[in-house]
């Protein structure tokens, strides 16, 4: 708890620096990553982030120490080579994109590990810090390093904000962009540069192995909540920054813990929560709306049965007979009866259940839609009368008043369905 207060009250200036750096990094990578997620290039981000490792090692070898400028440049160059190679291979061979990306990822990463291992054997005392590039260590970053990473993040954020319109076009309809004379090749080249930069800024805090998660997951999680680009970018940045800060906090409290994996843990939590509870496309809300729909169809069918009884000259149905209509669904049937009773669609008359005025009008609408649809299938789509019932059983719950009006007009206000049953309308006399 003390640690928690100490960290989040930002008394320690070095913590302020780290949090500031992580915030910029989070915004930058979420921003670029959301675009590449929308462009369906998520795997490319993964390949680039693995591919920067040999560059980091070569940068270290050239400088002979952990010089951030050498390392960032090395990482950038090696990420660039990987990106160029993947698009060159795609253009000039018949290999599929996933093959190319998988190959580039493993070849570059393998080469990087070879370099890293040989560096470790070399006995250079500076080497200890190099391991943190694999899984990241946000707490260990010095202030001057942070300036470099933060500065690069700012560059990414500014360029993307200035060119929002161009990148939107690149993702949604690049061909159209070309048609109106925009230099789409240059724009996507610039985007690739930003993507490599976004990987590079994260190598020390998050590490090369998991940087792809920080690129892609925020956008993917935010996509569950919104259908608009600007809120999507902002929400992705919020997820990313929060996860970044929480991950850093864990490395602060438990110094042996690498930052990257913890950031990914928090990010995955945001993604999982979004996947479960987002109101529009979360699986829980989808489950409930489906359940609600099934309940309503059950009630509709029950009212239809009561209406048909009335058509047959009976006032209503005894409850046992209703149970028999839906075998093994007694609990569900009871629920429906209770609901209809409370909403005053039905009344109980001794042991007999019958429709109220309100109930009759509603049941009549369902029966009418059912029979109109049957007639439509039969007349306009040439489907035999004995094949139309099942489809109507589903569509009667879905047809809107506008569609109903269209159907009526199209069929010229018919009186009988294909089974010679009356299509009931308001004021229809049930005898």
């Amino acid at each position, binding site marked *: 708890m003390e640690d928690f207060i100490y960290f989040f009250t930002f008394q320690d200036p070095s913590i302020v620096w780290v949090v500031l750096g992580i915030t910029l990094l989070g915004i930058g990578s979420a921003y670029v990553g959301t675009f590449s997620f929308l462009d369906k290039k998520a795997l490319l981000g993964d390949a680039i982030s693995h591919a920067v490792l040999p560059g980091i090692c070569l940068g270290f070898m050239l400088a002979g120490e952990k010089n951030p400028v050498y390392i960032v440049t090395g990482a950038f160059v090696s990420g660039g080579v990987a990106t160029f190679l993947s698009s060159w291979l795609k253009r000039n061979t018949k290999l599929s994109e996933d093959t190319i990306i998988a190959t580039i990822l493993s070849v570059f990463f393998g080469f990087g590990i070879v370099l890293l291992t040989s560096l470790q054997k070399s006995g250079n005392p500076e080497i200890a810090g190099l391991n943190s590039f694999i899984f990241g260590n946000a707490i260990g970053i010095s202030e001057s390093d942070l300036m470099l990473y933060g500065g690069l993040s700012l560059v990414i954020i500014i360029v993307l904000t200035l060119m929002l319109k*161009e990148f*939107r076009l690149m993702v949604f309809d690049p061909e*159209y962009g*070309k048609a109106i*004379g*925009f230099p789409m090749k240059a724009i996507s080249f610039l985007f690739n540069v930003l993507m490599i930069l976004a990987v590079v800024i994260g190598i020390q805090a998050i590490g090369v192995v998991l940087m792809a998660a920080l690129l892609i997951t925020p956008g993917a999680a935010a996509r569950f909540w919104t259908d608009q*680009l600007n809120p999507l970018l902002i929400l992705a940045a919020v997820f990313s920054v929060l996860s970044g800060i929480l991950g850093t906090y864990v490395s602060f409290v438990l110094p042996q813990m690498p930052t990257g994996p913890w950031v990914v843990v928090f990010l995955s939590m945001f993604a999982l929560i979004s996947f479960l509870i987002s109101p529009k496309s979360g699986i829980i809300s989808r489950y409930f709306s489906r359940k609600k729909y099934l309940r309503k169809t059950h009630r509709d069918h029950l009212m239809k049965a009561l209406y048909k009884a009335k058509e047959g000259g009976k006032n209503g149905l005894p409850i046992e007979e209703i149970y028999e209509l839906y075998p093994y669904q007694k609990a569900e049937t009871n629920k429906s009866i209770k609901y209809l009773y409370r909403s005053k669609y039905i009344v109980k008359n001794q042991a007999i259940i019958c429709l109220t005025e309100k109930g009759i009008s509603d049941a009549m609408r369902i029966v009418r839609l059912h029979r109109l649809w049957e007639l439509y299938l039969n007349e306009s789509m040439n489907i035999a009368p004995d094949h139309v019932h099942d489809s109507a059983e589903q569509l009667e719950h879905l047809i809107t008043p506008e569609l109903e009006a269209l159907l009526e007009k199209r069929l010229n206000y018919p009186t009988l369905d294909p089974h010679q049953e009356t299509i009931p309308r308001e004021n229809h006399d049930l005898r």
Partner: protein
Amino acid sequence: MITQVENPILEIHDLTVSYDQNPVLWNVDLSLPGGKLVGILGPNGAGKSTLIKAIMGLIAPTSGYVKVFDKPLNEVRSRISYVPQRESVDWNFPASVLDVVMMGTYGKLGLFRRPGKKEKDIALKSLEQVGMSGFVKRQISELSGGQQQRVFIARALAQEADLYLMDEPFAGVDMSTETAIFQLLQEMTAAGKTVIVVHHDIHSAMNFFDWLIMLNLHLVASGPKELVMNEELLRKTYGGKLNLLTRVTDMIRQKDFNPLKS
């Protein structure tokens, strides 16, 4: 049966186009007058979309050239508007109807400048022209096929161009929308614009177009509707591919390089 015109608005000179090394259009040579509603007809795989894309410079031709308003394409791009096929984009992209139509103003805005009030007004006006005013804020993923098509046409209108190239704007569109769009296109040509439409339905083509281009890997006909709409030309267009041409195409494809490229 190819009618050439004086002072053409669009001139296609001996254009051959290949995908990789698969020739899909052979030596198309035609010229079009301005202010007409032009239909491009032909069976599946006849090269209709390819012709439009080659005119727009989206595919580099193997040989030949295109001139629009008597100038090379890049000098007059702002006067040409392009409607790609509806399926060519991902409609799940997070954008509203207005966002997409605003893209029509990007060309005049150029790079880096953001669209403002003026651009928004143009976009709203274009939406009104296609009868989509009620859908300004709607997410594009929630639109029906016909509505998506109308959004694309509105985007093209927002470009305020003189020549419009539309790739299958009637695919997946219901009858009443089709008629409404055709009326809009006729109003545009009456106002002096030229509209070129890739189309597959011969029946409605007879009713609406002024000028027809018939394609089947090569140019079968180009001319006023009254002159080219006859049984012989239709049979040449739709009566299957030329056997010999298909065999030559196969032969070229099996080479390691494209021998047609100079």
